[in-house]
């Protein structure tokens, strides 16, 4: 028996040529195909498609045919088809996000996958925070992120696919469940979760689209500032201030600790821009609550990442090492609980 062996890149290339040709109604050639990031399960590929003499700069987002995602991953993140429809709704609503073009079909053999237009810029925090070309952008990014968050939250919920509603109480229960599964006692996280539980904001009458992972590292920016919001896989319905609180978690300042808003500005700059764009006042107490929540959340994610290695689900030194970052959020939590507004 002869088996035709094809490399993963070759398989992706030929499937993309067929799917891109279908979408643009012409024979397509795929060039400069590069795997950008992601683990085995969630992949991003960059490529150019040449169709009828026109070059299209594109991105493929793809989950290869399932090899068994963990229950937890499945329950927290949305699938690619849902992500595509969230992106469509947000992009149509005017959110600065990549334009989603088309979904692949099962016969393409790439698993759950869709293609969007490629947007210029870098997501690398270290470059954005320190490299000379981004000096002017650094003065704008906090404000831009406030405006874009307002646009995300203004997406008409009727245009969205079905999404999980996740309120403060659900989040607290989720983190406690994680701590119980992990098994090691975590006094500082327990203290913070009880603090959060006692002060949790009431659910909104009308929950809004929440990006769910709105932070430096998950958007592209160039010399002019933010060009596109990426990584929509944790989108859900809930309290929009969740996005603003998460953005201010100290870990996303990448060392620029005196600039709480994503490492680029003050909380007030972010809130002012958000208020001007949304017409809604940012409740300071509620924003602080979500920043505290985001800090515990990241701490528990660090422990969960290490657990992926420790449980044998994946073998990864990087994942193992991230477990030792959880204590950074313990430091931050003790500071935050003393700075109660």
């Amino acid at each position: 028996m002869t088996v035709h062996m094809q490399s993963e890149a070759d398989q992706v290339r030929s499937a993309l040529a067929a799917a891109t040709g279908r979408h643009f109604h012409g024979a397509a050639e795929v060039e400069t195909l590069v795997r950008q990031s992601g683990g085995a399960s969630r992949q991003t590929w960059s490529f150019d498609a040449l169709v009828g003499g026109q070059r299209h700069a594109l991105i493929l987002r793809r989950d290869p045919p399932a090899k068994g995602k963990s229950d937890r991953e499945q329950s927290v993140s949305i699938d690619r088809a849902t992500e595509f429809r969230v992106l469509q709704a947000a992009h149509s609503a005017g959110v600065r996000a990549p334009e989603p073009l088309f979904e692949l079909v099962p016969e393409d053999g790439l698993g759950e996958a869709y293609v969007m237009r490629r947007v210029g810029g870098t997501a690398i925090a270290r470059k954005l925070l320190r490299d000379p070309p981004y000096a002017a952008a650094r003065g704008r990014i906090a404000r831009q992120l406030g405006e874009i968050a307002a646009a995300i939250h203004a997406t008409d919920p009727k245009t969205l696919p079905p999404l999980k509603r996740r309120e403060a109480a659900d989040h607290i229960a989720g983190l406690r469940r994680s701590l119980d599964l992990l098994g090691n006692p975590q006094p500082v996280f327990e203290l913070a979760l009880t603090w959060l539980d006692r002060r949790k904001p009431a659910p909104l009458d009308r929950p809004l689209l929440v990006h769910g992972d709105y932070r430096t590292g998950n958007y592209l920016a160039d010399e002019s500032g933010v060009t596109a919001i990426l990584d929509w896989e944790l989108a859900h319905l809930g309290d929009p201030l969740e996005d603003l609180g998460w953005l201010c978690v100290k870990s996303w300042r990448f060392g620029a600790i005196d600039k709480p808003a994503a490492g680029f500005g003050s909380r007030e700059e972010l809130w002012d821009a958000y208020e001007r764009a949304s017409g809604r006042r940012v409740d300071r107490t509620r924003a602080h609550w979500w920043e505290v929540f985001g800090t515990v959340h990241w701490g528990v994610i660090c422990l969960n990442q290490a657990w992926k290695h420790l449980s044998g689900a994946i073998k990864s030194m990087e994942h193992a090492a991230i477990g030792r970052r959880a204590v950074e959020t313990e430091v931050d939590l003790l500071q935050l609980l003393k700075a109660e507004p």
Partner: protein
Amino acid sequence: MAQDRPTASELLTAVADFLREEAVPALDRADPRLGFQMRVAVNALAILEREGRLGPAADAHEHDRLVRLLGRDGTLEELNRELARQLRAGERDESDASLMAHLDATVADKIAIANPRWR
């Protein structure tokens, strides 16, 4: 029987220095992804060096404080489990100054090992 020099700490430092100064630049040229992973590895070795040096005293102090705070004895794990239970149940909270002093001291010792530059 005592080992000869280098001590564990000295040997870990020598390995980490070699990897940082010679292996990382070579890997960055050959394969940036491996260069990044090697930085993670070097950082992990630095954590182990600090843990070997500072860990035993930090654990002993944490144990002493927990015995005083909880008014009972047990292993570090048992005492932390009891403290975590009390905190989830809301039996203690941030208004308890002796609790906060204990957590401040414990987290200060942990971060001094995991990432002393974190502020």
